[in-house]
């Protein structure tokens, strides 16, 4: 009996190690072929690039742990971006418009997520369909609102949100670290986090154990929504404009990060640390391939293959 426990711990360590191994191989290979790859500058650059999807992936982890899915994140990035940037263009002092843009942007995320949650709970729409509908609604709304044209001419201070550094570290990277720190605390050290796992493991049993499952579900979509909008604001700051076609196909990158990180799509199993590793794995891969001048068509194929192989290794370990 003691043996079973320790071997289980060993395999779970190996499980975490598995994706770490892939990452290590990646880093070693890229450092061999590119002198620039393993420099502090590039590492900070990668962390900046992957922060956008990583922040959303943290939220997506909550949703997928409840055996849900949120396909609307890419479109929500664009919609939040255009709304937040248009708030910045209002003729009011920057001291007011800047925080207002952020608050409005985040509110859009909360409301959109909560709405998806209500669709899933009160109206019993499957998460896939509910968020698929939201995806096209937000994308269309972003185009409608901007007439298909980007919003330019923003105050230069806004772009500092993405390009600024604190203690030499890019602000989006710092935000990512904070998001994952908070996510870890919430998932593993609070009652709510425990309920997320319970609802994902067995929704009806969770309800009969006294958990308000509807509230948990609405909350996870709201969390995913607010983190998506946060990313939307950061992305708008990085390109210093509100782009209605921003965040195209982000939902796939984000889901890939979560799944590569070992979270089960059927819910109840997974960790947020795994998601972070998954996002880093994919981010580093993209960066390395860019440095090696691999063309973008080939890149897509390679990224897809790496996702497949990582998940395959994960599955075979479980058997």
């Amino acid at each position, binding site marked *: 009996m*003691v043996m079973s426990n320790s071997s289980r711990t060993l395999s779970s360590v190996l499980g975490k190690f598995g994706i770490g191994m892939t990452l290590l191989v990646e880093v070693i290979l890229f450092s061999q072929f590119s002198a620039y790859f393993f420099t502090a500058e590039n590492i900070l650059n990668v962390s900046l690039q992957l922060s956008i999807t990583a922040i959303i992936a943290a939220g997506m982890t909550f949703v997928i742990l409840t055996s849900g899915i949120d396909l609307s994140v890419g479109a929500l990035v664009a919609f939040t971006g255009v709304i937040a940037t248009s708030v910045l263009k209002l003729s009011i002092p920057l001291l007011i418009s800047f925080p207002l843009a952020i608050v409005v942007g985040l509110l859009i995320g909360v409301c959109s997520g909560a709405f998806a949650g209500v669709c899933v709970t009160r109206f019993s729409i499957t998460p896939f369909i509910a968020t698929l509908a939201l995806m096209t609604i937000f994308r269309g709304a972003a185009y409608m609102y901007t007439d298909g044209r980007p919003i330019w001419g923003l105050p230069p201070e806004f772009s500092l949100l993405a390009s600024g550094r604190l203690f030499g570290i890019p602000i989006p990277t710092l935000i990512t670290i904070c998001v994952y720190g908070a996510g870890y605390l919430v998932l593993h*050290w609070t009652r709510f986090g425990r309920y997320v*796992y*319970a609802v994902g*493991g067995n929704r009806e049993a969770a*309800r009969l154990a*006294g*958990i*308000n499952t509807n509230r948990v579900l609405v909350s996870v979509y709201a969390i995913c929504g607010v983190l998506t909008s946060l990313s939307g604001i950061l992305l708008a700051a990085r390109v210093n404009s509100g782009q209605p076609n921003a965040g195209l196909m982000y939902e796939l990158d984000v889901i890939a990060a979560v799944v590569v990180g070992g979270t089960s799509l059927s819910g109840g199993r997974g960790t947020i640390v795994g998601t972070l590793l998954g996002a880093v794995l994919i981010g580093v891969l993209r960066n390395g391939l860019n440095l090696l001048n691999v063309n973008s068509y080939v890149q897509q194929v390679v990224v897809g293959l790496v996702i497949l192989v990582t998940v395959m290794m994960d599955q075979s370990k479980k058997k």
Partner: protein
Amino acid sequence: MSALLRLEGICKHYPGVRALDEVTVELCSGEVHCIVGENGAGKSTLIKILSGALHRDRGEILINGARVTIDSPTDALRQGVAVIYQDFKLVPELSVAENIFLGKEPIQETMPFIDYASMHRNARAQLLQLGEEIDTTLAVSTLSAAQQQIVEIAKALSQRVRILAFDEPSAALTERELLKLFAIIRRLTSEGVGIMYISHRLDEIFEIGDRVTVIRDGRVVNTSPIITVNKKSLIQLMVGRKLEDEFPNVALTRSEEILRVENISAGILRNINFSLHRGEILGFAGLVGAGRTEIARIIFGADVKETGSIFLRGKEISPRSPREAIDVGIGLLTENRNRLGLITEMKVGENISLSSLNGLLKGPFLDKVKEVQTARRFVHQLHIKTPDVNESVENLSGGNRQKVILARWLATKSKVLIFDEPTAGIDVGAKYEIYVLMKKLAQDGVGVIMISSDLPELLGLCDRIIVMHDGRITGELDRDAATQEKIMALATLEGDVRWS
């Protein structure tokens, strides 16, 4: 009789557990060989190895004296071995005929399409042989559990099966349906099919079995003709110790009323009235679908009532969710603990604390040290067999899983506890322990309600028994006045029913 099947020296290890250790069992043509043992003894593992669903570490499978390879369910079928599992392996959305011929659909002579006409004809013939007339175009999901089982048997027989194993076949059947199953089994044995029969219900084994093999802790303890053993000696072999009584003999003193239900109607329920006192165990008897679970769910806030009132210690309550019921001190151990009780992805300790996390907070965070300590205390107190509270609950046997759920409700300090089929699929030893715990709860002043389809259990444990039929209460019997015959008469509203 010649040995049709011989499992020889079968060994199977899981990490840290020896599930089967040198198990040798023989099955003769035309014989019903029963396998009994406590949960976790290794019966299901043995059946799964026979059916090719699990791989053995060591040992041989011989059919008619010849060594055969069974590494997958397909291999097993090719050798004429089929298993009817407790939870049937049918595709619910497909029709009866499609299920029977799944994977071997007859093809039309002229066109490469499925020959539905001959498929339904053959399916009907196969079912008629079993003495059953079922519309073969119906989706399997619309059938009763008993009918589904017969479809499973027909499916197995359609591929010339010589060895048929049943894993807890009676779990979902009524008494009458069980008699029908026995008739089918007798017909099959008369045609030379060998039957392996696994069941917890010893009464059945004496009715249908020719020989019985007792397995304990992965080893064969004894194989003998059924006529040379009795129930008591079997139980002793199964648990490996002497069992004095089937039920704990604890006198309870009934005190004041704790729960009263007045005129509840909802769904099939009509005008339900009863009261529960502290320090008693109140039984609910009735056939499946009589409305017993429905009452429990309404008291627990899982479903809503249309009319009527519930009073807890004289104060009216109307819980609109399980949470509200739990907060006023009501707990429900649901039927089907795997589907409605446990979160199988979670650890033992996490399952125990799930309903009482409010008391395990330190600021906004969980006090995991206290959580583990509390869980360990319950594991110790209820004798839950698990290496540690951090073990995944999936690795526990049925009886221990039930104790984990019981621990969850003890942690909420419920004043009223409803047990819905608490001992379904649990072995004798664990059953007795659950009985002791229920008595102890009642002694401590908890109001206990027990819903059960096991009449001897209700008679042995309850102070009063309420009998239901078709959504109504048809009678209430005191312990001393209650008999199986009286209960069955009230449960079926037929005078002539006899309980075997």
